[in-house]
C-alpha cells in the first residue's frame, strides 16, 4: 500500500512523458505562425499586383477626355506582377509562381458601373479584381497527419482614386 501512495518523481515522469506532446504543440504553433506570415505575404502580393494594374490607365483616353479608363492590357499587367510578387516568396509556395498567376481569375472592369459575378460587388470606378488560390507549404502540418499543403484563397480589388 505504501508503494501506491508514493508520489515521488511523479511530476518529473509526467513532464518527460508529455515532452513529445509539448514538442508537437510547439512545432504546430511555429508552423501556424509561419503560415500566417506566408498568407500575409501572398495577400500583399495580390494587393500590389492589383494596384499596379489599376494604374495602367489608357493615357490617350485620359488626355482626350480627362476620364480614367483602364488600358486593355490591365489584366495581363496584373497577372505579370502577381507572378513577379509571388516569385519573391517562392520557397513558401507549393507550386510555381507563374502557374499560380496563370490560374488566377483576374478581371478588369473598365467601364463602370459594373457588377462582379464572382464577388457580388458593384464597382462605380474602373476596377481590377484578382482572385487566386495559392498553395503554401506546411511541412510540419504534413508530419502531424494534416495536409502538407495549405491552399489559401486570395482576393484583391483595386480602383483609382
Amino acid at each position, binding site marked *: 500500500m505504501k508503494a501506491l501512495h508514493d508520489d*515521488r*518523481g511523479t*511530476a*518529473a515522469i509526467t*513532464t*518527460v512523458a508529455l*515532452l513529445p506532446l*509539448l*514538442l508537437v504543440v*510547439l512545432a504546430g*504553433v*511555429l508552423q501556424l*505562425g*509561419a503560415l*500566417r*506570415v506566408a498568407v*500575409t*505575404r501572398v495577400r*500583399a*502580393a495580390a*494587393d*500590389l499586383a492589383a*494596384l*499596379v494594374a489599376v*494604374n*495602367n490607365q489608357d493615357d490617350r483616353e485620359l488626355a482626350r477626355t480627362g476620364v480614367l479608363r483602364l488600358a486593355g492590357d490591365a489584366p495581363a*499587367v496584373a497577372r505579370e*506582377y502577381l507572378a*513577379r*510578387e509571388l516569385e*519573391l516568396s517562392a520557397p513558401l509556395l507549393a507550386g510555381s509562381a507563374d502557374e499560380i498567376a496563370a490560374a488566377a481569375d483576374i478581371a478588369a472592369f473598365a467601364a463602370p458601373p459594373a457588377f462582379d459575378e464572382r464577388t457580388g460587388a458593384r464597382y462605380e470606378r474602373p476596377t481590377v479584381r484578382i482572385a487566386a488560390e495559392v498553395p503554401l507549404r506546411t511541412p510540419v502540418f504534413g508530419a502531424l497527419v494534416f495536409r502538407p499543403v495549405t491552399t489559401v484563397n486570395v482576393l484583391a480589388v483595386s480602383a483609382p482614386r
Partner: protein
Amino acid sequence: MREDRGLATLEMTLVLTILVPLLFSILEFGAALERWLAQDAATVQAARFAGEVGGDTPEVRGLLAEQMRASGVDPATVTIEIAPARVGWREPVRVSVASEYRIAIPFLFSTTLPLRSSAISRGEVNR
C-alpha cells in the same frame, strides 16, 4: 520524510529546464514572426512609394526608416536595396530589406535569424 528532501527541488529543476525553453521558444519565434510581418508591410509600402517617386530617393529610404523605427527596429541595422535606382515609366522597381533578429532560448541556444523582405512595384513617373 528525510528521503524526500531535495526531491521536489530536483523535480522542479527538471521540469523548468524543459518547460522554460518551450515557453521562450514560442515567445521568441512569435516576436520574430511579428517583426518579419512588420518588415514585409514596410517593404511593400516602400516599393509602392519607390514606383511613385521614380526609384531610390531619400524619401523612400526615409519612409522605410520611419516604418522600421515604428516597429522597434534601429534603421541603421537594416540593409536596403532599391533596384534600379532610377526607374523608368512602367518599369519594375524592386525594394529589398534585410535585417537580423536575435533569438535566445534559455538552456538551449541563441542564434540570429536573417529576415528578408522584397516587393516589386512599377514606375509611375513619366520622365
